[in-house]
């Protein structure tokens, strides 16, 4: 690769060394904001220069407004946190009206995370968003409770996961990313099912289900009893799943779970991720994502390599 070094130094976050392509879209760099941890972008205004990111995955959007769970919704755990937000969101119409234009103007790539309680709800929100300008891809959060199947998540059953992806595929031509839940025996089964159903990429991992007991009250601390574990604590599990899925599917992987540094992001990339997302770490240090981009750039420069060349290298042989 020939690169004009001086020019590049000034615009490192969009250096060709960092470019990555994914589900039919090209990202200026591989670092995304993870869904649900960056709101609709504007909330971090003043704290994060979103123009330097690869893109933003929005908070989950449903066709109708969802109220979310009763508080308490948060708890801190060793090197991590539990959340039970319950996918509170204003609904697709309000999202499109209130947030989409800012996102489309400010951010290099807009990935809208979509949620539903039935296959019909997933299709409805996808069809609605398909008609809106400014969206680069949809990320289907299949970890939502499937209310027709007694609340077990769509993402824990290969058939249900495939059914959601197929239904959404039918109503939109946007690139589709299936966001997988780690709460399964064999994540490669789910990954293969969504690949066969037409997903252009997979995102993993979503949070691991956990809980905490409030010893004083002798009751679960979260009103919802269970919450999703995220943050550095889960990174080894996330990396393992990225590694496994890389060996099982051909579609690109967006890796996430506990990333706080470029060093962490490199591990995901070497395990097989073409892009990464930073979630909980943003709460601690809003500038984490931009620091990760810079760190990846420095690494590529020092090591005379590029993100594209690093994807999956830890597997040794060719993919």
């Amino acid at each position, binding site marked *: 690769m020939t690169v004009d070094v001086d020019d590049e130094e000034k615009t490192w976050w969009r250096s060709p060394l960092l470019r990555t392509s994914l589900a039919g879209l090209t990202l200026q760099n591989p670092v995304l904001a993870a869904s*649900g*941890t*960056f*709101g*609709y972008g*504007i*909330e*971090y*205004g*003043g*704290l994060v220069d979103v123009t330097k990111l690869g893109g933003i995955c929005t*908070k989950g959007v449903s066709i*109708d*407004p*969802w*109220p*979310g769970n*009763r*508080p*308490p*919704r*948060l*708890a*801190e755990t*060793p*090197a*991590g*946190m539990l*959340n039970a*937000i319950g996918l*509170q*969101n*204003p*609904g697709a119409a*309000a999202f499109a009206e*209130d*947030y989409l234009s*800012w996102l489309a103007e400010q951010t290099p790539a807009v990935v809208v995370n979509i949620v539903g309680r039935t296959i019909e709800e997933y299709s409805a929100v996808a069809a609605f968003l398909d008609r809106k300008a400014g969206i680069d891809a949809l990320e289907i959060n299949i970890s939502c409770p499937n209310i027709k199947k007694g609340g077990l998540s769509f993402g824990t059953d290969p058939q249900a996961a495939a059914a959601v992806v197929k239904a959404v595929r039918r109503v939109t031509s946007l690139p589709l990313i299936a966001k997988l839940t780690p709460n399964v025996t064999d994540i490669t089964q789910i990954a293969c099912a969504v690949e066969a159903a037409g997903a252009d990429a997979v995102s993993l991992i979503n949070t691991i289900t956990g809980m905490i007991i409030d010893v004083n009250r002798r009751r679960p601390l979260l009103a919802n009893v269970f919450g999703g574990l995220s*943050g*550095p604590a889960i990174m080894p599990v996330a990396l393992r799943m990225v590694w496994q899925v890389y060996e099982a599917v051909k579609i690109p992987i967006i890796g996430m779970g506990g990333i*706080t540094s470029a060093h962490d992001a490199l591990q995901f990339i070497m395990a097989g991720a073409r892009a990464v997302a930073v979630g*909980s770490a*943003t*709460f*601690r*240090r*809003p*500038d984490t994502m931009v620091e990760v981009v810079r760190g990846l750039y420095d690494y590529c420069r020092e090591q005379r390599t590029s993100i594209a060349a690093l994807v999956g290298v830890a597997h040794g042989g060719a993919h």
Partner: protein
Amino acid sequence: MCQDDNKRQFITRITSHRQLTRDIWELRCDLPSGMLSASPGQFVMIEVSPSLQPFLRRPFSIAYRQPAPSGKGEEFAVIYRVVGEGTRRLKSLSPGDEVNIIGPLGRGFTWPRRDDRRPVLIGGGLGVPPLLFLAQRMVASGVVPQFFAGFTRADQAVGLDMLSELGVVPVVATDDGSLGRRGLVTELLPDPPPGDLCVYSCGPLPMLQAVASWCRTGRIPCEVSLENRMACGVGACLGCAWPAAVPESHDRDSRRYVLICKDGPVFAAEEVFAFDR
């Protein structure tokens, strides 16, 4: 969506750190020039540990601002109780150390007001510090507020020196009578409340509810400052939700909750306390 973009991340320096009571400390830091807009009721998120444990920042109200001892610029104070690992870490920091903060955050108290109601400040325990900053501002604008302060015991009292510097004479109550009157601070309030007051309150939830009820009987405006566990502090994670009192106008499901970090921490009492349910 319009967003208040004053909030920034700053590395600031500790100017002093002293123990006020057995478990309460006062931390003063340089006020970054980017935080000059910080107003009473607003808060900062402090990174308490260089390691990943504890992972999240901790929210603390701004207790007051004052000229820096160096003569250049200002400093701000945070008064906090050591309750867990995060505050234990904070305690171990020394003057000269750097701290990473995000601020100013949230919506503070409404002051100055458009009407000429007489302000009454009612604080309980560590609810007193944010009201010090409000009292500072009121005195600076020529209004000396009434101040009611409740503590569990005399040795838990904080902020009284600052109030006397300001010329504010607080009415104090302690649970055990070891300072001021014995009993709850809300028992000291005149009943019924004079109709020309406006009330600002911060403290434990039962106290705030009692204060809000009292205000309601007199139909006087009441602002309360709430707390909740926080992750982001900026309205992004939706973690600090609090049930809204659901006035009719809020017909959409998604408005069932307010966010303490962004819509608050200061609310008009009727936004968050539903008395009619």
